[in-house]
C-alpha cells in the first residue's frame, strides 16, 4: 500500500493481511527515522560494506559505486555507520534538516 496517502479502513485488506507479494518497497519506513546517515564522498572507498549490511536496501549502488541513500526507506538504524571501515558515514539528528 502506498504511503503517499494513508488509506481509510474501507480501502485496506481485512485483518492486516498483506495480500500482494513483494510489496515491501511500497511501505515507506523512512518516516521512522530520527537520525540520518550522511556519507562523506571524499572518505568513502566504495568498498560496499554498507550496501551489504543495510537491512532496508537503502544504499543505492550503480556501476559498483555508492550513488545515494534512499531516505524514503532508510530507518536510521545506523548499521551502515557502525560497519563502515573508514568512518565515512555520520549519523546526524533529523532535527538538523528540519530547521
Amino acid at each position: 500500500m502506498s504511503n503517499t496517502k494513508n488509506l481509510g479502513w474501507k480501502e485496506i485488506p481485512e485483518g492486516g493481511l498483506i495480500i500482494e507479494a513483494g510489496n515491501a518497497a511500497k511501505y515507506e519506513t523512512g518516516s521512522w527515522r530520527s537520525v540520518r546517515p550522511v556519507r562523506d564522498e571524499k572518505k568513502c572507498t566504495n568498498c560496499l560494506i554498507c550496501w551489504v549490511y543495510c537491512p532496508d536496501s537503502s544504499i543505492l549502488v550503480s556501476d559498483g559505486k555508492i550513488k545515494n541513500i534512499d531516505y524514503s526507506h532508510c530507518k536510521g538504524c545506523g548499521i551502515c555507520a557502525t560497519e563502515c571501515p573508514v568512518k565515512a558515514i555520520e549519523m546526524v539528528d533529523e532535527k538538523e534538516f528540519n530547521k
Partner: protein
Amino acid sequence: MSKKITALTGNEAVAYAIKQINPDVMAAYPITPQTALVQKFSEYVADGLVDTEFITVESEHSAMSACVGAAAAGGRVMTATSANGLALMFEIVYIAASNRLPIVMSVVNRALSAPINIHCDHSDTMGARDSGWIQLYSENAQEAYDNTIQAIRIAEHMEVRLPVMVMQDGFITSHGIDCVEFIDDEKVTKFIGKYQPRYPLLDVNHPVTYGPLDLYDYYFEHKRQQAEAIKKSQKVVVEVGNEFKQISGREYGLFEEYHLSDAERAIVALSSTAGTAKQVVDELRAKGEKVGLLKLRLFRPFPYQEIIQALSHLKAIAILDRSDSFGGFGGPLFTEIRSALLESEKIPQNVNYIYGLGGRDINQVDITSIYADLENIVKKGKVEERIKYLGVRE
C-alpha cells in the same frame, strides 16, 4: 416423517454436530467439563467416520495456535474448551478474531480458578467478550447442537469472517441427559455448504502474509474493520437462523421472548437458567401474574436495539449474571442492558443478580423470589439495592 429423538448429553450432542460438520482440522486439549466432547469426537476420528485431521496438542495455547495456522492455511477448523483452557489460549483467541479466521469453538462454561472449581459459571467466556469473537449461548443440548451447526455458516459468511464461540453450561447441560433431535447428515452437509477460504496460505499462486507488523498508522483502521464485521454479523445470525428453521423446524433469533410481550416484570438470563425460569413463569402465569423472560442467545454482538424494543414496556427487570465483573457496576450482562436502556424513552426499573458462581445451584424457589423482589420494586417505585448476590451465604 416421524421425529427421531435421541437421549444424550450436551457434550455428545455437540460432538455429533462436529461429526456431521466434518471439519478439515480439529485441534483440542481435554479439560473438564469439555473432556467428553473431545473424547467422543476422537472416537469418530479413530473409527474413520470423519475426514478430520485431529491434532492432539500439549496445551490450549497450542490448540488455538494450531487452529489459527490451519484456518490461515485454508481449512474449516473447530475446537472446544472450558474455563482455564480458554484462559490459557487467550492470546491466540484475540489473534484468531483479528486475523478474521472463521474458527468455531465449543465452550462448555466453567468457573475460572482459584480456588479450583470444575462447575458452571460464565466467567470464562465473559472474560473473552471483548476478544472479537461472536458469542452464542445455548439453553440445552438441542440448542448447543443447533447453534454449533449455525455457527459454521455465521463465521464463514463473507461479510463476517469472524470466529464464533458456542456456549453450553458445564455439567448442567454438558453432562445432563437431554432429548435431542438430530438433522440428517445430508441436510447438514447441504446447509453448511463447501468451505470457501478467502486468503488461504496454501494457495501458492496467490501468496499472502498473515500477522505482519501493524503500527499506529494502520492498526486502528484494522480494528475499525473488525468492529464493523462483528456488527454486520447480527443480521447474518438472523438470516442463518431463518434458513436453519427450514431444515430443523426450530426457531432461532437474537433472543427468545417467553411470555414477554404482555409482561410487567421480567428476568433476563443466559443458558440453562432460562430453562428453569420458564418453569417459574408458567407457574406464576397460572396464578395470573404478568411475568416473562428474555433469554439472550447472541451476546456478541450485543443486539441492543432489539433488546430495548423487547424490554422497554416492562415495569421492572431483573438481569441475571452468572459471572462477576469484579469492581465493576454489576455483572457483564447487567452493564450492557442497563446501558442499552438509556437509549429508551421509558426506562424500566432494573436490578442485577449475580448468582450461580462455581456451579452454585439456582432453583425455582430462587427464581420465584426474584419475581417477588420485582413486585416489591414495582410497588415502591424504586430499587433499594441495585447489585445483589443471590444464593451466597452471609
